């Protein structure tokens, strides 16, 4: 599978199925290009954060007091 495979309406179908989110077909088609852009940016950030230089970084889920 190529890293650059687009997000398609079929991708949205599978995601909706996994999330048990019933969306009409026209909404699924409309979401595909928007999700493609968002996921591309999120994947780029994920690639950066997966680098060896960030191995020790933990997620912020609650900020420390100071």
């Amino acid at each position, binding site marked *: 599978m190529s890293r650059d495979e687009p997000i398609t309406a079929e991708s949205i179908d599978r995601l909706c199925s996994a999330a048990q989110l019933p969306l009409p077909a026209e909404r699924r088609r409309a979401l595909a290009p928007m999700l493609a852009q968002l996921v591309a940016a999120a994947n780029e950030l994920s690639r950066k954060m997966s680098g060896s230089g960030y191995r020790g970084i933990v997620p912020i*889920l609650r900020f420390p007091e100071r």
Partner: protein
Amino acid sequence: MTHPDVQNLTIREAAARIQRSALSPVELTDALLQRIERVNKTLNAYITVCAQQAREIAQAAETMIRAGYHLGPLHGIPIAIKDNIYTRGIRTTAGSKILGDFVPDEDATVITRLKRAGAVIIGKTNLHEFAWGGTTDNPHYGTCRNPWNPERFPAGSSGGSGAAVAARTCLGALGTDTGGSIRLPSSVNGIVGIRPTIGRVSNHNVVPLAWTMDTVSPMTRTVDDCVLMFEVIAGHDPLDEHSAQAPVSDYRAELTRGARGLRVGLIRDYSLTHVQPAVGATIRAALQTLQSLGVEVEEIAMPSIHGNISAQLTIESCEPSTYHQEWLRTRPADYGDDVRTLLELGEMYLATHYLQAQRYRSVLRKEFLDGFRRVDVFVTPTLPFTATPCGATTVAIEGTREEDMLSAIMQFTGVPSLAGLPALSLPVGFDADGLPVGMQVIGRPFDEATLFRLGHAYQQATDWHTRAPAL
């Protein structure tokens, strides 16, 4: 003092007159209610106006004060409340159809604290639906408009509170800020707004947007007034399990120290990059004013800052979508289309996307904390542009290239939200069309005092905050 003048009083000015019985809280509240009636048809800043209760509480305040019971500077002061903050017995819609009939039986902690200080709640303000957006173009309660030019937006999501304060219909307001929702409307409405350090102010009984970024805070015309409200609502709340135990600073003691000696950081290739020319020129002029007050300015590199938009969108999509899961399945058609779309998209990120974004926040926060060894605050514009036409979904920042509004709007405000830092938006001038420009000042964790100190010094040297829209 005649009725037309009282709307222009600051909280401090009104408080001094009320305390010595030179101004009646009833007269003040009546004057503001009349002003709401006159301008709200144009601005649509309020969803609910609490006229009867406000008059009753104002009367009670007057009775108490005349008998010598004065609760403090907010006693008898009319304050507007963003409509995602619970107010007992008063409809709290969150700008939505889904909560259109919701009447809480409890106050938010911030409301409890304001009431104990004697504030008069004058109304509940319009917001972007469920606070998930930056325009306050609300499909259920109408488009909120900017008092400086009603064809322009008031930003959001606390657009109603921003417009209400700027239009002199209240002396202060509460807003909420997740990715910029206090600072953005403060900027385009020409007022002061602060995003506190996460956990500094209780979120108890506030309708959430994104749990790891939500905050509540004041919006006022002056920094001084912001301090008066902030010191009432700040502090640990046992009802909010994420509320910080850190002691509350004496903001008043720091306020009048002046700006001399403070060090301001500009982030290289970021702070003044990708902004409309008028915004850039106005921020540079504001920095020169600060330098004339004895502030030092230096450039700091922050190499990780450019991942912030994606991280912001990922977190601010996934968390609201989690909160809204049931309604999105049972009442999808009751959302406005823009919010419904964002909630649907937020269900489709991977867990690893979300956690990598949360790891990015650690990196960004560390770079800021390293930077705070050299400077006391960082400065950026609050927004890279001034108020756009109502209904616009894109904006041109450089040249004529139109950009998506949501990403553009969070260009600068997302960063302190991600890093858990406090940030103040200050009015610093106007563009050629008379639209306000705001400057964002970002501080160390729990160092709201330095933000207030710098902002107050700036306002002592300038008069932008005294100007009023011609409504």
